[in-house]
């Protein structure tokens, strides 16, 4: 019975798989075009698609216009968004590293996603615009019904892919696009209007994303988040196409769709989560085994770096830290229990920002999965304390060790990847956690399944941490120790080595630095800090469930860390306060807390653009003139700087 059932399902599931592949292909085409021509991995592609689809919804469903009109409105919106993003927020970044541009697109992702949620409500409950009827025809020879809309999606995907490939190959404009892709400076010298070419690629890519959005939304949950997630599958498909070949991207997309669908034949728990795992595994493989030299990577024209001032002014620093500490101890005494809770939360989140300071600030590796490491800490504590009645402290220790271990594991594939692809890998890890590891049915004794773990407050050295202030003080202590440790680290030999790796991996290697081992150390420390934070969040909140450790959270914390300044250890506290008290501040204004991610995204975009080295160096110089530096420490120590660059080793080895 089982065997015959499975074979019988195969044709039907093949149709599902190919339809799904069509969706991924559609989502990927615009992404590939934009990357190919402008070298920017557009994280906001899904958000642009989603926003345009919502515009179509507004026009066709809410206002009742015909579906085609909605589609045109969507295309217009998509193109306009693409132009705006490129012209005003990418073009000013010319000469900066590709990662900076990627960070800007992340800002746009937050802005667009939140805006859509605010305008159209952040729920899955929107009727999609149907361009084509969902009814279909029976595939000859089987009992499978192929929907006209599914067929349309596949056909449009193929059409756009091959059409774009043809344009790139055989038209003059396409040739200039390829020239710009290869070397914009040379192209400029040849008289090609590089700005126009870039703009066109973004407009076209976004418009195609809009078409994708409208065609895809009937088949998925039509909410502000889902399309962004679809983009991850699109990334995988694009990577299979080596981010340059559109036909191969389509092939990759179909392969992915089938690979995600077939396992559902065997799983009786028809959960959505399991399927995405395959996307992620494939993503990882695609990144890892991509041929390094053949993928086009921009060789940055200019170097971005943030010079580390030789020393800070010790007395000034002591004054600032002392004051902050004093305020930190005294002020919460006067706050309500709820605010004490928020303050402790802010410090613990500050630990996560600190983990990014280590990874991104020191080593220059970006990570979008810090909350997944935190989840390891949290769920270890949750399952051991809540499920097996362990004492909190050994559970916490185990959680930290486990997260260090996982951090190193994630670091291993990361070693071969440069900034951009490392970022994608960490997204894959985050989604892996969200959709598989922590999803009900996979490892319920760890994740708690569909229930959450309950964790009570422990006692520390005999003092109960039940009270709001008690726990807060404890969190302050942990945070202070962590900050001190990381600060020591940054001033020390380790800090030097990590920074050297960031500046020039190859020179570090040939100077005797075991780059692999050091990077893994950095990952381990970073993941350990995040795991510690998660382990502390468990008793703070009192309950552990996956929703609090999602990819969205990781994304937001990266955005905030960049806004606050990743190179500064002091940034960690500010970042935590910003993330927790920011929404709190909003409740006192007429503006709803739902605006918070949008505000963060907007600040992020502006921050990345408006931070030319000159101004910050200028500020530092002014500070240094005002407060002359004191005695030197070995290795140099840094004064906290507010707003900083992210810079990554982009250059591949230059051959010959």
């Amino acid at each position, binding site marked *: 019975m089982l065997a015959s059932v499975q074979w019988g399902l195969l044709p039907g599931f093949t149709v599902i798989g190919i339809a799904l592949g069509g969706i991924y292909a559609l989502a990927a085409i615009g992404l590939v075009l934009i990357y190919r021509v402008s070298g920017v991995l557009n994280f906001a592609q899904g958000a642009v698609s989603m926003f345009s689809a919502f515009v179509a919804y507004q026009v066709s469903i809410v206002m009742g216009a015909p579906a085609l009109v909605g589609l045109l409105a969507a295309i217009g919106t998509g193109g306009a968004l693409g132009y705006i993003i490129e012209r005003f927020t990418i073009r000013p970044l010319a000469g900066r590293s590709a990662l900076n541009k990627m960070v800007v697109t992340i800002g746009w992702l937050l802005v667009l996603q939140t805006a859509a949620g605010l305008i159209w409500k952040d729920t899955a409950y929107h009727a999609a615009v149907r361009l084509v009827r969902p009814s279909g025809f029976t595939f000859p020879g089987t009992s499978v019904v192929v929907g006209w809309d599914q067929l349309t999606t596949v056909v449009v995907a193929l059409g756009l892919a091959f059409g774009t490939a043809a344009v790139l190959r055989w038209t003059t404009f396409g040739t200039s696009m390829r020239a710009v892709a290869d070397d914009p400076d040379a192209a400029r010298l040849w008289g090609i209007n590089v700005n126009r070419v870039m703009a066109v690629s973004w407009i076209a890519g976004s418009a195609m994303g809009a078409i994708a959005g409208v065609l895809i939304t009937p088949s998925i949950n039509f909410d502000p988040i889902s399309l962004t997630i679809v983009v991850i599958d699109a990334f995988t498909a694009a990577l299979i196409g080596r981010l340059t070949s559109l036909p191969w991207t389509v092939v990759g997309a179909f392969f992915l769709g089938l690979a995600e669908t077939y396992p559902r034949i065997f799983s009786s728990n028809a959960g959505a989560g399991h399927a995405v795992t395959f996307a992620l595994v494939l993503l990882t493989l695609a990144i890892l085994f991509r041929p390094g030299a053949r993928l086009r990577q921009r060789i940055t024209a200019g170097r971005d770096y943030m010079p580390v001032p030789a020393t800070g002014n010790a007395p000034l620093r002591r004054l600032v830290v002392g004051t902050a500490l004093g305020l930190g101890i005294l002020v919460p005494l006067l706050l309500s229990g709820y605010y004490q809770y928020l303050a402790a939360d802010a410090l613990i989140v500050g630990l996560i920002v600190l983990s990014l300071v280590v990874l991104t600030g020191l080593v220059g590796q970006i990570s979008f999965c810090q909350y997944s490491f935190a989840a390891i800490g949290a769920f270890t504590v949750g399952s051991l304390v809540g499920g097996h009645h362990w004492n909190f402290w050994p559970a916490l220790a185990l959680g930290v060790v486990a997260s260090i271990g996982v951090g190193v594991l994630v670091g291993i594939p990361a070693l071969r990847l440069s900034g951009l692809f490392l970022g994608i890998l960490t997204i894959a890890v985050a989604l892996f956690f969200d959709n598989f590891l922590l999803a009900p049915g996979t490892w319920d004794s760890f994740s708690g399944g569909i229930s959450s773990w309950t964790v009570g407050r422990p006692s520390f050295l005999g003092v109960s941490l039940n009270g709001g202030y008690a726990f807060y003080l404890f969190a302050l202590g942990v945070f202070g120790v962590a900050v001190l440790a990381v600060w020591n680290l940054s001033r020390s030999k380790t800090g030097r080595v990590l920074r050297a790796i960031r500046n020039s991996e190859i020179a570090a290697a040939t100077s005797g630095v075991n780059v692999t081992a050091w990077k893994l150390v950095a990952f381990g420390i970073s993941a350990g800090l995040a795991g510690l934070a998660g382990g502390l969040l468990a008793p703070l909140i009192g309950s552990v469930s996956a929703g609090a450790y999602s990819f969205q959270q990781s994304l937001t914390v990266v955005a905030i860390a960049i806004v606050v300044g990743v190179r500064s250890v002091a940034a960690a506290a500010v970042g935590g306060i910003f993330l927790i008290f920011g929404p709190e501040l909003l409740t*006192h204004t007429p503006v709803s807390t739902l605006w918070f991610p949008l505000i963060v995204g907007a600040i992020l975009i502006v921050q990345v653009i408006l931070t030319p080295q000159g101004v910050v160096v200028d500020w530092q110089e002014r500070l240094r003139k005002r407060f002359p530096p004191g005695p030197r420490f070995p290795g140099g120590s840094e004064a906290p700087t507010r707003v900083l660059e992210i810079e990554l080793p982009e250059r591949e080895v230059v051959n010959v």
Partner: protein
Amino acid sequence: MRERVAIVFMTLNVVATLAIGGAIAYEFAHPGHATATQSAGATVQTTPATSQPTAGGVAGQVHSSSGGTSAPVVTAGGGGGGSSQTSSGSSKPASTGKTSSGKTSSGKTSSGKTSSGARTSDPQQGVSNGVITVGGIFDETGPVDATVERDTVRSYFDLVNAQGGVNGYKLQLIDCDSKYDPSAAHQCAQKLISEGVLAIVGWLSLSGEQTETPYLTGQGVPIIGGLGVPAEYASPLSFPTTPSLVTEGTALGTRACELKLKSPGVIFLNANFIAPVEQSFLNAMKKCGISPVDVETVDATKADYTDVVLKFQADGAQSVAAFVDPFSYARLFQAMERQNFHPPVLGGGLDKASANAQYASGCGSTCAVFGADSATPVLEYLDHSSTPAVAQYLAAVHKFYPGQYGALDTYTTYQWLAAEVFVKAIEDIGNGPVNRQTLVTALDGIKAYSDGGLTQPITYGSGNHDPLHCLQWIHNYNGRWKTTSGWNCF
């Protein structure tokens, strides 16, 4: 020029951070409303001045960090955490979500007055200044949209407030978004407690109700309404206004027998309360010899049901019995329609009007929802719109939250009932002090309340409460739901 802009921008950054710090300072400098937490069942004395002891911890045990009731330190209340706004229609002054106990309004004395025996407000339990504040936890964002349940409760409060309130009190609901996540639900519970709500009135949190009911009970907070998860029938402080989902499972199973469903494919939502419901449903079907060909559990985020349909077809299912959230049905039906799979459908909670429109979009005469059967423990609203109780309900929502009118369904009716039950209890308290204890006593004393037949009569009594056991069958005739039976009781 760019430099200048950048400098300005960075200055703004610094200013913003300082502003956040300032907001915190502002918070503690200005007296807010009560933030104290209560241990279960303890009565709170009325305090003679606008000062309250600082309350520590919101989680776990409660203790007062200053050790006495006469400490002059003023605590700050706050909103935040989840997204919470308070508004109850026309009668509230500010959107800041708290009342400051320093103000007087409409002649009511501030919490500074004590009067034995006479009405006294207790700011620590959501009663202050002539306003009763209650809380609600709703999955407002995420795969489920429960804002309509929130607004239903608010509609009733607005109605009551417009008529002068209840016993001179105005009503206010603070909501908190549980985001379809148990941790967020827990944080909501903590936050609402710290804001000192009198009770939870109306909640719809698929992920949170089962886990937070024991927590709230432990904190002494009465709960009225809810989805009907098992935990709500196991607490003396929980006052449900619907039959338990386990009862509904039995009911639907029995209905399956009556309809003589053959070889059903069964779908259940993956939720932390679903297991006993599944059990009762399958057991009831077993009694008449029906056993399912396939049982699938799905997540609320599942977008494409084609694979489920294909499996059902391959397994030879001749009917579909489902218990998922209203939003998932549309996607199920879409897959069924595409695959030309039109067996009889039995489902719980199928009657959401706006969902119906989605179910029915583009499928012409072959919509899967046509001919479907469901059950409801309250009068089917669209079918009884002229019954006075139903008319009042529809009119109120239409008046105060017209945008939500299309989203009404059986679940929203329970919340309306919850609001009504709450108000009735307040009425019953009469001139006495309003606090959690007196509220619970009044609720326990409710007998045979049926709001003009909207529901079967509700009688609580002391101890755990399980007042309702009856449902009516409804059937979908070409898009309209019609009641096809009287009350069937289990």
